[in-house]
């Protein structure tokens, strides 16, 4: 098999490029290829003939990737719920702001900025909710390959949405400030928080692509980052004239603590909670 290792590595690279989120499938097909090569070389074929026959029997790498893309990539309920809730809230907030603009209660630029903030930060919470569900699934040993793949696909979509809408919110906010206060930027708490949320989500987008448990941790910690940025800014610069209610700070602190605790739980072995209660299996 030493003759084939370079060819197998090159074949694997070509197949993997069409099936980035299915490394398990690539492993399985590689096992098949190796068995076929063994069978053919034992039958007396030369290495070149065995390679050509085995690859032809398996089929063209691009066609394999296309066939797999057709198989049902059914999602995972928590990610579907998160995306649906985000979509629903986005429609409601959008409709409310549009009505306010049409009634001259809000300028269009400010309304667009507010929508971008709400939808962008909402997408981060949607990802965070999915990540929290993934922590629970990991703890009970039910975070399988299918669920992990669905979570990572949703994570890519949601972190990219957060980054894009937060960037839009920053730009729109700067334009609104220029039009109304004469300057683009004032380094206030909300602006700095938006920069932090943007930076975090750009990093999160890179992490989601690297591995599922890393994506889980950045998702849950992202909840703490966005909550601190969004609602914590109100503590530093309370809205006038109503200010911030007395329960606000402890509730925010409790939420941030809970998310950091969940993030820590992600580092426990798969199925730890189920084993502890006498159930359980490991994560596939």
């Amino acid at each position: 098999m030493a003759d084939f290792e370079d060819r197998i590595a090159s074949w694997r690279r070509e197949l993997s490029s069409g099936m980035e989120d299915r490394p398990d499938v690539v492993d399985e097909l590689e096992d098949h290829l190796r068995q076929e090569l063994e069978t053919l070389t034992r039958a007396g074929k030369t290495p070149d003939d065995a390679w050509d026959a085995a690859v032809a029997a398996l089929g063209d790498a691009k066609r394999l990737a296309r066939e797999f893309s057709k198989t049902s990539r059914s999602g995972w309920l928590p990610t579907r719920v998160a995306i649906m809730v985000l979509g629903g809230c986005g429609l409601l907030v959008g409709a409310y702001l549009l009505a306010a603009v049409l009634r001259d209660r809000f300028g269009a630029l400010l309304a667009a900025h507010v929508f971008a903030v709400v939808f962008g930060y909402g997408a981060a919470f949607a990802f965070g909710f999915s990540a929290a569900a993934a922590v629970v699934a990991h703890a009970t040993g039910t975070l399988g390959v299918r669920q992990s793949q669905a979570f990572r696909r949703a994570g890519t979509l949601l972190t990219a949405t957060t980054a894009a809408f937060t960037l839009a919110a920053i730009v729109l906010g700067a334009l609104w400030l220029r039009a109304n206060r004469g300057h683009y930027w004032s380094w206030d708490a909300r602006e700095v928080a938006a920069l932090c949320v943007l930076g975090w989500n750009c990093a999160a987008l890179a992490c989601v692509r690297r591995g599922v448990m890393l994506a889980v941790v950045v998702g849950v910690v992202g909840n703490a980052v966005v909550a601190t940025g969004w609602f914590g800014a109100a503590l530093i610069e309370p809205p006038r004239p109503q200010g911030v209610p007395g329960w606000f700070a402890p509730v925010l602190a409790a939420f941030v603590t809970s998310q950091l605790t969940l993030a820590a739980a992600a580092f426990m072995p798969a199925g730890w909670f189920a084993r502890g209660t006498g159930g359980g299996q490991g994560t596939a």
Partner: protein
Amino acid sequence: MKLAKDLVAASAGPLVLSILSGGESYGYAIIQRVRELSGGRVEWTDGMLYPVLHRLETQGAITSRWRVAENGRKRKYYALKTTGRRVLAEHRQQWEMVNGMLATAWS
């Protein structure tokens, strides 16, 4: 013999379920069994089996697990679930009905 694409697509699921009803197996062994059953007369591209296996698993008819094979490498084994046995029984009824109809029509 090259079967019509639709016929291959329709028969792949029942064939795989039937093979797995005989016990746990893995992709390469399943392909070999298909070749044996057809006496080498039916051509299947090996790669087309795996999307079928994955679809059956997503539908809940079969389950899979990775085990270390005799050569020390990881290998994915598939087994029929109770749901899969029910699905196989339904497929069998339908194919036997179609086979009966065609046999009558061609006699």
